[in-house]
């Protein structure tokens, strides 16, 4: 009896799944789950990049944001992997390397294979910042001091296993020094406050926030943890590679949209064709630029490749921890 029931439910599920064709999708507004609180950078950017979704030539239906914050994003992504409907009406914002690093460390219900990427909208590299009165003026000086004083260089960042932490680990590994990484509870803003107030000697933070803090005259930016310099916002700040540290872009905070695995292919195809166009809308670009948020639009294929590469790098990096 149980078996028959199971077969019945499965076939019903299959029939309904196959009935979903992309032809009339979307018929109602689409939700995007954000794993961070309202007002955070991910939330703020997600609201901007989805604001034109309702236009006739975009998705034709508006997108609304659902905040599911907690435990550094784990709460939201756990929910998304285990409970979200696979009908294309629930998407989620992803943050790489955060969710990949968390799934490598374990204790969560998802891996990179639980989700299907749709498209990427932004890339916010990690930068190394020091207070405006700091004795360090270059990355080399900072590393030299850290080498002379092992275990004395305090470095603030937004939390454990987020981009900032990854960058700190990479710097430690590349320079062969021991530093003290101090995670904060209040996210990037609290980590930045610790640098400005001199609670810590240095910090890793988002390029966008550091750029603003530098303009306000409260910090110096010593290096960018990316493959090339950021020409738009910080043309004069060298990459960590230029500063002699073998650090790649594994810590860059990529943000984009994804759906749960098992979402009908027709819907994934439609979304991955439409969403990058929506991200490229000129009103979106204008708002993002005004907010100092660097954009990087990538299509589904490119994101899949990026996820796979991150997974390899991070597994390697986090092995010893």
């Amino acid at each position, binding site marked *: 009896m149980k078996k028959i029931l199971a077969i019945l439910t499965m076939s019903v599920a299959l029939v309904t799944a196959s009935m979903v064709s992309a032809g009339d999708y979307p018929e109602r507004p689409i939700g995007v789950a954000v794993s961070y*609180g*309202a*007002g*955070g950078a991910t*939330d*703020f950017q997600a*609201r*901007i990049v989805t*604001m034109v979704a309702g236009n006739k030539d975009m998705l034709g239906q508006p997108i609304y944001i*659902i*905040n*599911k*914050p*907690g*435990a*550094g994003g*784990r*709460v939201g992504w*756990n*929910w998304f992997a285990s409970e979200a409907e696979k009908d294309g009406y629930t998407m989620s914002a992803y943050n790489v390397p955060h969710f990949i690093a968390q799934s490598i*460390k374990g*204790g969560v219900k998802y891996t990179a294979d639980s989700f299907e990427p749709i498209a990427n909208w932004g890339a916010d590299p990690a930068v190394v910042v020091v207070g405006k009165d700091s004795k360090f003026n270059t990355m080399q000086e900072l590393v030299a001091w850290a080498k002379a004083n092992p*275990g*004395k*260089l*305090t470095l603030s960042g937004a*939390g*454990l*296993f987020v981009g900032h932490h990854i960058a700190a680990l990479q710097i430690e590994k590349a320079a062969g020094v021991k530093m*003290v990484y*101090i*995670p*904060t*509870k*209040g996210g990037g*803003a*609290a980590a*930045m*406050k*610790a640098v*400005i*107030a*001199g*609670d*810590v000697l240095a910090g890793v933070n988002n390029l966008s926030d550091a750029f*603003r*803090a530098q*303009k*306000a*005259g*409260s910090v110096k930016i010593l290096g960018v943890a990316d493959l090339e310099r950021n020409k738009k916002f910080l043309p004069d700040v060298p990459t960590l590679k230029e500063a002699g540290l073998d650090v790649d872009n594994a810590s860059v905070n990529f943000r984009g949209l994804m759906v749960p695995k098992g979402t009908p292919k027709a819907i994934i195809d439609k979304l991955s064709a439409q969403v990058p166009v929506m991200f490229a809308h000129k009103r979106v670009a204008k*708002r993002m*630029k*005004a*907010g*100092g948020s660097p954009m990087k639009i990538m299509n589904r294929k490119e994101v899949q490749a990026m996820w796979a590469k991150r997974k390899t790098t991070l597994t390697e990096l986090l092995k010893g921890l």
Partner: protein
Amino acid sequence: MEFLSYFGNVFEPVSFMLLLGGTIGGLILGATPGLSPTMAVALLIPFTFHLAPHQGLILLGAAYTSTIAGGAVSAILLNIPGAPANIATALDGHEMAKRGEGAKALHLSFMSSAVGGVIGVLLLIFLTPVLAKWALAFGPSHLFWIAILGVTVIGTLDSKSFVKGLLSGCIGLWLSMIGYDDIQGVQRFIFADALTGGINIIAALIGLFAIPQVLEMLSKGRALADIDVITVRQQSLTASFREMISNMKALSIGTITGSIIGIIPGVGGQIAGLVAYDQTKKFSSNSHKFGTGHPEGVIAAESANNAMVGPSLIPLLTLSIPGSPTAAVLLGGLLIHGIFPGPDLFQNHAAVAWTFIDSMLIGQFLMVIFGIYIANLAAKIAQVPRSILAAGVFILAVFGAYSVQQSMGDVHVMIALGVGMFFLEKFGFSAAPLVLGLILGPIAESNFLQGNLIAGAQDGPAIYFLTGTLNLVLISLVILSVLFAFWSTKKANAALAKSEQGGSA
């Protein structure tokens, strides 16, 4: 005096309509349990996309101030504090409402909100450069001691017994440890999925305050004889105003405490009301009346939580550091218009910045007018039959807990905590110290852990936590607060013994 020249912008037709709409909408949102000021402001951000920068900010600023004041409505009438800021308001306000003095409590709360709010904004206008430095002075060790100072309040807050107060506080501290710890990266007490992110403070507030009360009302049943008819007394405005003025001490302690605590990033908004309430109680000649529906309690709590609003924006506007979750959302509202807060904000975007600040000043007055209008209508809630009110409050509680982050898990947590609290109250424990433990736990813990990490890289924890002027000042305040608690209990016991002797003789 530059700010005076931008008042005209506030009275442009569109701007003024937004201010009016933001204030009224904010009062209503604030009165809805579960919709915290942070949420209200976040919900409004998309609307500001289509407005000029100063208009958008007027809308957000109006919503910020009036949701905090609006939270007093549900705190007083239903005993559901809409946000941590309104916990202290509920302690005396709800007792007043139960006596039929809801209108008076609401009048007092809106008027003292406005007084506190105006003074807070004036501080923002005149003392920003001085106070900005002050905001940066608090590092992890200082925030740890501030949290401990808060812990010393726990025993004396709204509890008949010092020991039971402390025990409630400990339960709160334990509850605050549940969830994923972001600093050490460990999972603690997660025996249900809903607890991964820890206990949500808003859901906990609603559960701890509202549910025991619902159960209490239901346990009395529907028998007509058990329903005491409350006459809702009309309250004239002048009488309320005179009452507020006659409680000058509570008003000034509330305003000053609120403004000082508001500046400290990461702590301010949540505890301003409670600390002001406790300070006022300590300095009051009627300290035994607190918790029984004493107007001073409402005045202190409400003047403090609105006085906090202005100063809490100082780190944001001058250093681009959002000191509270709501300030973080406001930062988003600024950035979206390409306005980067910083020391040159008042030069580069003078019109926007000053118009925003001016509108917050005028918003305070609008808030009183509409708040009082709402008060006279809303106070009649006390006349609703118990069984119906219980059902209504329960629906609001479920709705509120769910709406925080669209999660049924929070609703379950809310109900579980509420039922637990119902039984604890039977044994003389109370919700306020428990909630304070829940709020202070993470502040004390994370700052202690961070301080320890930093101290390890410097000269060790003893020097990091125990030396330096600010540390020493805070430590002495902690000691004074503990001594004062002992002294006042002793005095109260002596007085009690004396009156009992007098009675029997």
